[in-house]
């Protein structure tokens, strides 16, 4: 039995209602099932192109977004399915995008790497590593000038932290004290390059010092730890105290994309990380603290699964775009 004395109550248990916590678990399952459904659809030839799965990283996506409302923004990455779901996207429209359908989030123009849900505050995944970093700073500048009170969470990977855009974005966010949270999902690799080889500092959060901003490194597979660091950063942002840098240490279970032979890491390492699966850890925490009872987790998982099945069916039935529309939406007002 876990120690449930007040000193040992995890942050998330004290901060959120049981309903929100169950909702967070549900989202984590939904992400896992979504990725598995995407993988399966790819194998069946329903998906064109490539995709990047976030299996194993569910806690960082959900933990970073639980403190956000619909008016808050996120910018996401090529590995963005989890971020979209955590920000409230509809999985049917996500699958429709994968299948290149007119009902997809990008009307079939973008695919996996460009899913956005602007209405829910998701400014989009990005095909360019580091592409979202300055965009997030721009969104934070808007929020400050327009006094919307919105904060922006900028997801990026450990690989992106070596792009020039990282430095420029963090510096501007810091000098202008903008309400933005840089959330680095450090899954140990940028494609085949380990952070040991790509990055001189031990923790990406150490880089916060260079921008005089708050930095924290947390266990990215621990929902509570991610939400705690994120809530603190959101509070600072809303109070006008400027940006924060959070490193969520996690691991991607699958290859980088569909063509990865995993030659740069060992089976043992993968197995070790798979043993730190964020979902059973979340289930354990919730049951230790009486948030879920026997059978609840399985029921929530089954609901998530059903939502995926429905989403895939919706996507399959949806219409394809008309070929004559290939140049639609290049400009807001097309030339006559």
């Amino acid at each position, binding site marked *: 039995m876990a120690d449930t004395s007040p000193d040992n109550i995890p942050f998330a248990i004290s901060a959120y209602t049981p309903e929100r916590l169950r909702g967070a678990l549900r989202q984590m399952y939904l992400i896992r099932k979504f990725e598995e459904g995407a993988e399966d659809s790819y194998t069946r030839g329903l998906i064109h*192109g490539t995709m990047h799965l976030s299996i194993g990283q569910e806690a960082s996506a959900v933990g970073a977004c639980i403190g956000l409302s619909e008016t808050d923004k996120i910018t996401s990455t090529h590995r963005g399915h989890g971020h979209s779901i955590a920000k409230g996207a509809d999985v049917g429209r996500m699958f429709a*995008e994968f299948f290149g359908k007119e009902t997809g989030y990008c009307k*079939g123009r973008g*695919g996996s790497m460009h899913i956005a849900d602007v209405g829910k505050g998701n400014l989009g995944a990005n*095909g360019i590593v580091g592409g979202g970093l300055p965009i997030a700073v721009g969104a934070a500048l808007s929020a400050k000038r327009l006094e919307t009170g919105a904060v922006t969470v900028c997801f990026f990977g450990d690989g992106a932290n070596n*792009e020039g855009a990282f430095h420029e974005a963090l510096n501007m966010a810091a000098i202008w004290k903008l309400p933005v949270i840089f959330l680095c999902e450090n899954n140990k690799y*940028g494609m085949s*390059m380990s952070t040991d080889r790509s990055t001189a500092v031990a923790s990406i959060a150490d880089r916060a010092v260079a921008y005089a901003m708050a930095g924290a490194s947390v266990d990215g597979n621990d929902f509570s730890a991610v939400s705690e660091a994120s809530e603190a950063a959101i509070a600072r942002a809303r109070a006008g105290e400027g940006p924060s840098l959070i490193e969520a240490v996690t691991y991607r279970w699958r290859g980088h994309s569909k063509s990865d032979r995993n030659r740069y890491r060992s089976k043992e390492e993968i197995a070790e990380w798979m043993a730190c699966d964020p979902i059973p850890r979340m289930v354990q925490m919730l049951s230790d603290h009486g948030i879920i009872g026997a059978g609840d987790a399985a029921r929530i998982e089954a609901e998530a699964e059903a939502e995926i099945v429905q989403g895939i069916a919706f996507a399959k039935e949806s219409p*394809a775009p008309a070929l004559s529309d290939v140049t639609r939406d290049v400009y807001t007002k097309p030339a006559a």
Partner: protein
Amino acid sequence: MNVAADIEARELSYAEAIREAMDVALASDERVILMGEDIGVYGGAFQVTGDLIDTYGPDRVIDTPISELGGAGVAVGAALTGLRPIFEFQFSDFATLAMEQIVNQAAKVRYMLGGAVSVPVVMRFPAGSGTGAAAQHSQSLEAWFAHVPGLKVVQPSTPHDAKGLLLAALEDPDPVMIFEHKLLYKMRGAVPEGHYTVPIGKAEIRREGVDVSIVATSIMVHKVLEAAEMLAGEGIEAEVIDLRTVRPLDRETVLASVRKTSRLVCVYEAVKTLGIGAEISAMVAESDAFDYLDAPIVRLGGAECPIPYNPELEKAAVPQVEDIIEAVRAQVKGRL
């Protein structure tokens, strides 16, 4: 022309031919190094460098962090000071992040310094659409580079030329940009063993004909050859010119062909407007070959939009064999 033509040619894929060129160069010249993202144990995103790291080690087959501007700039600096770097962009689209070092530095430093230095750098760009990778991973940007005095730009369409042009690029004292169409990597063809070069600045007539000159680049050469076979069945004999080098252009080959056939069609995958077709057309219009024209010049290029994800839209965005047949038929039969 081909200094090793006497050596028996085997079949290699386009990717293997490029790898072999790099192998030949690494083996014969200590100054040659390879740089790029995931080109080491991963073997490159398209497996072009493959296992070269096993032979030459990580000091000569150098994985860079995800830092295109810095990485390309390091290659430029190394080329200025005694090395012969071959820099691989993972996708040509990511060269947009490195334009500063390519356009402001590599292309201009020799001129700005009054000829005091040269920049013998080679850059490789996997380009083009057809892989379902959408707008930020499918562009054909060669005309951007060709607009810059100081750069040379080549687009090999066969395994033979891919190897020979890369070895020619390494011998060239100035920066050479090599655009490789991703869909060609698996294409097989005869490739001589050992060292040979294909001259930069020289187009190749792939098919002789008397009715129309079709100037094509990269993968479009193959589509045009396919179209030409069909057109021959209708009694139209097309002359197919593989441009091979975009800068400097082989004026004489193109003009001589137009004088012979009196018709010109340009086919390229990049966006049609303000592209290579415009330059070829203007070159003909400004020359004596203009007097020989019996019909207006026709350009077939990419649609005026980013490359869409949906596979049918993606095809609709670039010229296909049927489009070429229709355009040539209309031009030759005077139904324009």
